[in-house]
C-alpha cells in the first residue's frame, strides 16, 4: 500500500531533496558501471519537484515527464520500486514493462510519466475534465519542461484548459536545456510563464532553486485553482546540473554557466539556511544523511533482489 507524503516542514523538504539527489546519483553511478539502463536525472531541480508536489493534497493528481524521479519520490513513492522499474524488474511500479522513463503510480495519483515530450500536456486536460465532470475535489498538476513548451501540444493544452476552465496547475520546469540544445537556441523570450497571459491564464515565474519559494508559489497557485476552477501556469526557473541522459559528459555545456548554477544548488542553499537559523543541527543533518543513505541501500537491495518478469508478461496488459 502506497502512502502519499505530505510533510511540508523545511527540514522534511530538505531530507526529501537529499533522498532524490542520493537516489539519482546512485542510479547514475550504477549506470556508469553498467548495472542499470540509461535514465534522465533531475539533479539540481529537486526544489521544483519537492516544493510543488508537497503543496498538493491527497486528491490531486500528477502527470509528469521523463525527469520524474523527484516528483515520484516527493509524492512518497518507494525508491526501491522506482529503481526496480528502471532495472526492468518484476517489482517495479509497472512490472518492469515501462522502464526508466515512464513510471506511473495509480495509488499515489501519478497518472503518467511521459517520455514523449509533451505527452503529459496532452493528457492533462482530460484528467482535468474528469475532475471537473465527476465532481472530484482534486486538481491536476502537470510537470513539463521548457522543451515541451516548444511543442504544439503546449499551445493546444493551455488554450483548451483556459477555454474549458479546467483545474490544472501547469508547472514548467525551465531548466535551460532541451536534451542537447540550450533553451536560448529554441525561443527568443526568457520567461515561459509570460506565455500564459496569451491564453487568458494566470502565470508566474519563481526561483526554482528555492524550495520554500516554490512551495509558497505553488500553494498560492493551487489555492487559486481550487477557488476559481481555472488553470494556472507556474514556471520554476532552474537548471539541469547533470547531462541529459546518463551517461553524458556535458561537453556541450558552457562551464561558466554550469558553475554559476552549481553555486545555486537548491540543497546546499536550504541546508545552509536551516543550519544557520538553527532549525537544523549538525547532528540532525548527520541523522538525515544516515537515513537517506540507509533508504538508498535498501532500495538498491530491493531492486537487485527483485526477479525479472516472466516472459509470459510480454503480451499481458495489452488489452483489457
Amino acid at each position, binding site marked *: 500500500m502506497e502512502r502519499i507524503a505530505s510533510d511540508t516542514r523545511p527540514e522534511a523538504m530538505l531530507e526529501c531533496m537529499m533522498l532524490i539527489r542520493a537516489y539519482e546519483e546512485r542510479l547514475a553511478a550504477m549506470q556508469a558501471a553498467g548495472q542499470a539502463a540509461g535514465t534522465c536525472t533531475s539533479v539540481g531541480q529537486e526544489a521544483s519537484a519537492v516544493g510543488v508536489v508537497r503543496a498538493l493534497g491527497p486528491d490531486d*493528481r500528477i*502527470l509528469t515527464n521523463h525527469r520524474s524521479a523527484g516528483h515520484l519520490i516527493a509524492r512518497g513513492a518507494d525508491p526501491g520500486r522506482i529503481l526496480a522499474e528502471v532495472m526492468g524488474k518484476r517489482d*517495479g*511500479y*509497472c*512490472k*518492469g*514493462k*515501462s522502464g526508466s522513463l*515512464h513510471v*506511473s*503510480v*495509480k495509488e499515489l495519483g501519478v*497518472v*503518467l510519466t*511521459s517520455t*514523449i515530450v*509533451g*505527452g503529459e*500536456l*496532452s*493528457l*492533462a*486536460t*482530460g*484528467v*482535468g*475534465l*474528469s*475532475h471537473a*465532470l*465527476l465532481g472530484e475535489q482534486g486538481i491536476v498538476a502537470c510537470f513539463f519542461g521548457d522543451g515541451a513548451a516548444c511543442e*504544439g*501540444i503546449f499551445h*493546444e*493544452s493551455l*488554450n*483548451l484548459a483556459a*477555454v*474549458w476552465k479546467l483545474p490544472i496547475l501547469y508547472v514548467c520546469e525551465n531548466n535551460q536545456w532541451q536534451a542537447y540544445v540550450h533553451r536560448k537556441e529554441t525561443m527568443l523570450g526568457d520567461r515561459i510563464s509570460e506565455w500564459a497571459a496569451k491564453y487568458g491564464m494566470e502565470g508566474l515565474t519563481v526561483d526554482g532553486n528555492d524550495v520554500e519559494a516554490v512551495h509558497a508559489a505553488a500553494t498560492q497557485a493551487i489555492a487559486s485553482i481550487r477557488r476559481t476552477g481555472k488553470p494556472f501556469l507556474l514556471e520554476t526557473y532552474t537548471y539541469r546540473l547533470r547531462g541529459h541522459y546518463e551517461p553524458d559528459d556535458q561537453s556541450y555545456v558552457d562551464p561558466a554557466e554550469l558553475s554559476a548554477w552549481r553555486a545555486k544548488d537548491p540543497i546546499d542553499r536550504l541546508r545552509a539556511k536551516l543550519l544557520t537559523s538553527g532549525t537544523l543541527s549538525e547532528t540532525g543533518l548527520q541523522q538525515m544523511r544516515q537515513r537517506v543513505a540507509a533508504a538508498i541501500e535498501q532500495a538498491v537491495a530491493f531492486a537487485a533482489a527483485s526477479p525479472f518478469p516472466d516472459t509470459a508478461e510480454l503480451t*499481458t*496488459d*495489452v*488489452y*483489457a
Partner: protein
Amino acid sequence: MSEITVNEAVSQALAEEMRRDPRVVMFGEGVATKRRELVREFGEKRVRNTPLAEGIIAGTAVGAAATGLRPVVDLLFAPFLCFSMDEIVNSAGKLRYMSGGQFAFPLVAIAMTGGGWTVGAQHNHNVESWFVHSPGLKVVMPSTAADFKGLLKAAIRDDNPVLFFVDLALGFEPGEVPDGEHVVPLGKAATLRAGRDVTLISYAKTVNHCLQAADDLAKAGISAEVIDLRSLKPLDEKAILASARKTGRVLVVHEASRMCGVGAEVAAIVAEKAFDALKAPVLRLTGPDAPAPSSYVLEQAFIPQPGAIVEAVRKLVVPAFAA
C-alpha cells in the same frame, strides 16, 4: 426492425449509450453544433465543441479515459488523425501496458474516410491499417446501418481504445436495424451471403460492391460467399479461415491502398493457415498506391468496383471451371 440511415444509426448509438452511462461524454470540432439533440438531452458539459486542434482533442480523451470518463471524440476526416497519432498510438494504445495494467483507456475515436464526395486526398485516406498494426487499439469499420449502431455501442462499452471508421459514402445508406437494444460484439465478421466457389472478403463500402458482384457472378453460375469483416482488429480469423477452407479461393477487396493494408493481413493469414485448402492464389483488389484523387472519374476509378471484382473472380475461378 426499422429502416434508418447509417448516420441515424450512429446518432442512435450515441444517444442510447450516453443515456445508459453518465460517464460517456462526447467532444470534437463542431460536435455540439452538429449534434444539438445530444446537447439538449445531455447538456453542454457532456457534449462539447472544441478548439480546432486534433492533438489535444485526442489527448483529452486519453486523459479522461484514464481517470473515469468514457469519451467519444469525433476527429472528422481520417487524414486529420495524423495530428492525433501520438495521443492515439503512443498514449492510448501503449499506456495500459506501460503502466503494468494500472490504467485503462475506454475511448472511441470516430473518423470519416473513403471516396464518394470528391473531397481529395487530404480528406479521404483509408488509414485503418495503421491502427490495426499498432498495439493496444481496436479498429472497426462497418458497412450496414445495423452494424454501425451495434458496433458503435459495443465500442463505447469496450474498455480499450477503439477507432471507429465511417466510410463517408455510406452515411445516407438506409438499412434495417433491430428495434430495442442492439449490440454487435467487436471481433466478429458477418457472412452476408453464403457461397461455394469463392470467398469475397471486404469491409466498408466495398462490401456492397462485393454483394453486387456476387449477384452478377451467380448469373454466370459462380457461387460467391461474401464476408464483411466489420472489425479489423480483433480480426475474425476463424470466420476467414472457415470460408477459405470451404471455397478454396479467396479475393480480398478494399479501398485502402494495397501494400501493408488489411488485405495483406488477410491474405497472409489464409496463405499460412488455409494453405492446404487453397485451390488458387489468394488475390487482392485494392485502391492503388496513390493519393485519393478528387476528380469524380478518378475517384470512382480508385475504388474497386463490382465489375473489377467480377473480373478478378473470373481469374480465380475460371481455370478450375475450365478444367
